[in-house]
């Protein structure tokens, strides 16, 4: 087994994993503003985007401080390349139709609620503070996405078909959220223990899908790798759009 390059500075890598989930997801949601099916959902997606972006900024600012290499939150967001992004592959999957957008949001929320709730007790005070704030937001997000999964799943034949298709398309990217390695191992008492997160995630998903009359796909395949920078092709399309303006005007102030 090769040495894990991200284990050299485990807290920095761990913060990037948490931050990049939010940053990439926020970028995806931002692209949906003005494209949602109703005005209320348009407002919702902009608000969700802001919360995730705010969480990403708090985490990146702290990561920059932990790294201590003179990079700030902007440099970490805008000047890293694809292989240095440590988000789970779930969040880089396409927005798709509303069913798929909601499926991705729901899976992320079902993971982030127990994640942040666990991190409130982190031995790292700043990470605990960020999580304390984020946990309240994540619970609200989960309430929102759950309501849509149930409403679409247990709705019309067409909405059921599309919500099921969204779950089918994204389930294979969900295990990557829980992919832990020696980065987490080195952070006992600081990082969240993955096993209980997975248990709570599974319980949430199971309960909500049952209420929504939906099922998990039978195919057990899971695409992993995001936590060590091995992404699906899609991230390579998201990052240039997010980063090109910043890179064209390094140091610009407005």
């Amino acid at each position, binding site marked *: 087994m090769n040495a894990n390059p991200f284990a050299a500075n485990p807290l920095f890598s761990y913060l990037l994993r948490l931050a990049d989930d939010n940053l990439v997801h926020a970028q995806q949601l931002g692209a949906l503003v003005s494209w949602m099916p109703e005005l209320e959902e348009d407002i919702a997606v902009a608000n969700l985007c802001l919360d995730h972006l705010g969480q990403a900024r708090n985490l990146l600012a702290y990561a920059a401080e932990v790294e201590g290499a003179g990079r700030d939150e902007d440099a970490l967001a805008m000047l890293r390349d694809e292989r240095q992004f440590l988000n789970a592959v779930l969040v880089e999957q396409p927005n798709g139709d509303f069913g798929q957008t909601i499926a991705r949001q729901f899976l992320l929320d079902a993971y982030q609620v127990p994640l942040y709730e666990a991190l409130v007790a982190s031995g790292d005070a700043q990470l605990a503070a960020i999580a304390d*704030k984020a946990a309240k937001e994540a619970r*609200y997000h989960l309430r929102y996405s759950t309501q849509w999964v149930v409403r679409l799943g247990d709705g019309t034949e067409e909405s059921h078909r599309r919500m099921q298709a969204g779950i089918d398309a994204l389930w294979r990217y969900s295990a990557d959220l829980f992919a832990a390695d020696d980065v987490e191992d080195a952070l006992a008492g600081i990082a969240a223990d993955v096993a209980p997160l997975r248990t709570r995630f599974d319980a949430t998903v199971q309960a909500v899908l049952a209420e929504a009359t939906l099922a998990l796909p039978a195919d057990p395949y899971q695409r992993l790798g995001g936590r060590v920078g091995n992404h699906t092709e899609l991230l390579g399309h998201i990052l240039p759009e997010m980063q090109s303006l910043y890179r064209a005007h390094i140091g610009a102030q407005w």
Partner: protein
Amino acid sequence: MGRSVPAARDPELAAVWAAVAAVTDPEVPVLTIEDLGVLRSVDRVDGRIVVTITPTYSGCPAMQYIADRVEDALSGTGSVGEVRTVLSPAWTTDWMSEEGRRKLTDYGIAAPVTVRTRIACPRCSSRRTRPISEFGSTACKALYRCEDCLEPFDYFKELL
């Protein structure tokens, strides 16, 4: 957790508190940062004044604006110091003052509840209301509608 209003026996801290406490939220201009519970403390650290504020939501776009206005208000008092933003303990709508809740309702925005219950219409006080959208025009609001007076209204959503 209560706010730490500086004792009146320290006139400089009291003067700085009075000045920065008057800064208003650009998105809900009837509320000051004191009403909101965003202003946490004014202290003296190593001879310098430290004003501590906390954001409502992680991504609240008003926060930078508020921090800048607090900075202006601080320098307007002639005291030397800085503005710090802290995340912990995390802000909750329970920190909103009674005065703030009253001003909010008068302004036409339903004030955040302290226990989950039916939201009262800020116009006719009816509790026959229902949510239209979990999210509203800013991160801190949701959209409701009154079944009696039939008006839609903003609800400053509880964050507990």
